[in-house]
């Protein structure tokens, strides 16, 4: 029983990651009609915002030792963290909370990256076939990831969560389990609530502002919206920036869970497309629902009891569910007719 609760928690937290990534992807697809294969790369860039921030604030002053040498004979480097020296406790605190603090940096950076990407490249592809959009954004994704590799290498770079959020929460005691039966990492709760907040915020923004209405209209018919005097391009650019920010923040917050490396984006790419399509192309609630559904199913499929019955099911569950849902619900969970069916 405790195991099931754990697996549900697990699925929720996995699902919130999927949902968050799929949300940004749907935002771009839903508003701009662009199939963005570089979305995973944006997630990865977000994670590297944190890495960079962390590297900057943990900058060390290097002095060469006069007495000691390294194993290969050069003088030993003595490193002294600058933050701590300059800012004392605040410096330490900042380093400890670097993942959370890097959000402040990631928001503008990701937004600008999104805007530049849209203005520089994506806008030329609005009316081009989806296959070409896929190709060009895929090319971009490769370029971005290679650039990151040039600077940061291929090896994962650990980004620990703040000390205070690193431990476990004994969630089970809240439900009346004996202590220690159902513990769950605090950071994953943080991630879950963070994702929920972002998802809620984006929904509210699109649903309750005229901006959202305009963007929905622009997605249905760009030209007509333009003929009504609305500069839809600007709003689309903003939307792209927003989507990039959402993807980036998803990446930032994920770094303590998964040590980021340059390849991170590609690993999430296929998965996030599947989530979006299962949810129904262009549907935000669909993306979120599918994210949670697939997250939870994946958790359950990984249970030893399930795997004993169906060997290898955990490897293919996502794909299998995608196939079943698409065959029973033609446009995914909540998709509209006519979207992306040609």
């Amino acid at each position, binding site marked *: 029983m405790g195991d099931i609760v754990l697996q549900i928690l697990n*699925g929720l937290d996995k699902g919130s990651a999927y949902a968050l990534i799929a949300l940004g992807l749907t935002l771009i697809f839903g508003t701009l009609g662009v199939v963005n294969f570089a979305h995973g790369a944006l997630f990865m860039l977000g994670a590297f915002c944190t890495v960079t921030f962390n590297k900057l604030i943990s900058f060390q002053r290097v002095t060469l030792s006069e007495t000691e040498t390294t194993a290969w004979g*050069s003088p030993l480097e003595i490193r002294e963290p600058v933050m701590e020296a300059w800012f004392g406790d605040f410096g330490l605190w900042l380093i400890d909370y670097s993942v959370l603090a890097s959000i402040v940096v990631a928001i503008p950076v990701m937004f600008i990256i999104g805007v530049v990407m849209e203005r520089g490249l994506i806008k030329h592809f609005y009316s081009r076939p989806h296959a070409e959009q896929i190709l060009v954004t895929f090319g971009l994704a490769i370029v971005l990831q290679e650039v990151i590799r040039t600077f940061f290498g291929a090896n994962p770079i650990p980004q620990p969560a703040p000390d205070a959020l690193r*431990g476990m929460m004994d969630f089970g005691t809240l439900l009346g389990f004996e202590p220690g039966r159902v513990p769950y990492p605090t950071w994953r709760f943080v991630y879950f609530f963070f994702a929920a907040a972002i998802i809620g915020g984006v929904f509210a923004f699109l649903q309750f502002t005229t901006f959202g209405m305009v963007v929905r209209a622009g997605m249905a018919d760009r030209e007509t919206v333009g003929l009504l005097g609305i500069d839809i391009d600007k709003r689309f650019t903003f939307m792209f920036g927003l989507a990039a920010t959402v993807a980036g923040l998803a990446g930032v917050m994920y770094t303590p869970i998964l040590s980021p*490396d340059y390849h991170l984006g590609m690993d999430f790419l296929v998965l996030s497309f599947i989530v979006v399509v299962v949810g129904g192309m262009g549907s935000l609630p669909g993306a979120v629902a599918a994210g949670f559904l697939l997250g939870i199913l994946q958790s359950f499929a*990984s249970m030893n009891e399930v795997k004993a019955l169906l060997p290898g099911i955990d490897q293919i569950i996502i794909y299998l569910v995608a196939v079943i849902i698409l065959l029973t619900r033609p446009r995914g969970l909540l998709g509209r007719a006519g979207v992306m069916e040609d």
Partner: protein
Amino acid sequence: APTFFTSAANAFTNAPGASAVTLGFNVPQSGAYADEGADELRAYELAVKHLNGEGDGGMLNTFSSKVLDGTGILGRKVEYVTGDTQTKSDAARASARSMIEQDGAIMITGGSSSGVAVAVQGLCQEAGVIFMSGLTHSNDTTGKDKKANGFRHFFNAYMSAAALAPVLSANYGNDRNAYHLTADYTWGWTQEESIAAATESLGWNTVNKVRTPLGAGDFSQYITPILNSGADTLILNHYGRDMVNSLTQAVQFGLRDRQVNGKDFQIVVPLYSRLMAQGAGENVKGIFGSTNWHWSLQDEASQAFVRSFGQEYGFPPSQAAHTCYVQALLYADAVQRAGDFNPCAVVEALEGFEFDGMGNGPTLYRADDHQCFKDVLVVKGKDNPSNQFDLLEVVDVTPAEQVTYAPDHPMFAGGELGTCNPGA
């Protein structure tokens, strides 16, 4: 026998000209092991320098065989070509073929996965060139998939298990319940099998062996079932990114803070590398594993190598770099000793070759399966690293005889070595 060059008058594939000989360095340049690949390439370039008489000579000076004198191989200058394995069997083979067919490489070396090693080894066997594998840890490479033209300097899963078991017993006792998380492919399986066998013979109980998909990213769904499984030890049969992630997450789930059956919960990572330790950060502290070589070793050979590598590149070499460097030297030495580039002559020179001065103590390239037998290091994540490279601490150097097994050991059964193929 198949012939790659029917028209060639030579007795073997890609016989070198009078002035130069070309080696093929097939390393992962993209994908998860790109950093390992880059380090391998650095080592190869260093080896080429030393063979050609440039630089400080590195381990040429400590190597027990003294036939290499810095004039290349058999008087030919050593040149090389490189290629990207992408850590995919297919791509690695295509890349190796291009080096053999287009560039006339007479020996292929490198790689950073057992799948690639086995695949390329097979290709080299068919093409009639020598293959000196890089990183490959699966029992199969010199077990059921062994090939006469292929040689492995790296250790293997069985040897890791044999080296680790005494240390585990000494530190964690003989009454443990182990839970395995295993990368779901051949290497993972052989390591799981080896470790399980070794720990069970200590008296440990294996609670469960769970296979995880390669590249799963988030392993939490595999970790939660451990919490209440009654296991008190987790064996992570993962490597590379998977290991970094699963270890990080296992720690995140509080496994190391748990008490089970009145014991502290422990995690073991049987196969370690410094690059991985770097990726896992804090989480490796105090965790046992094994490794082929480590730069902090104090023997003369290791120090010579670290010195010449460090001076060249500014940081110490990884075990990948070490193995690849050694492989290049061993090949050159074998040719030199045989006085012939013919692969069959090289095979003969390497089979049963005993040497020292390469960092792992006296070593034997066993004739039966072309596996190297040498000391294995048991290491532990260092608690107080003095710098960013100082992550592992050697706790035990397991002597070679303790990790040696019979050539017909069941974990290595199944394949045939075959006969050497010179390609013509």
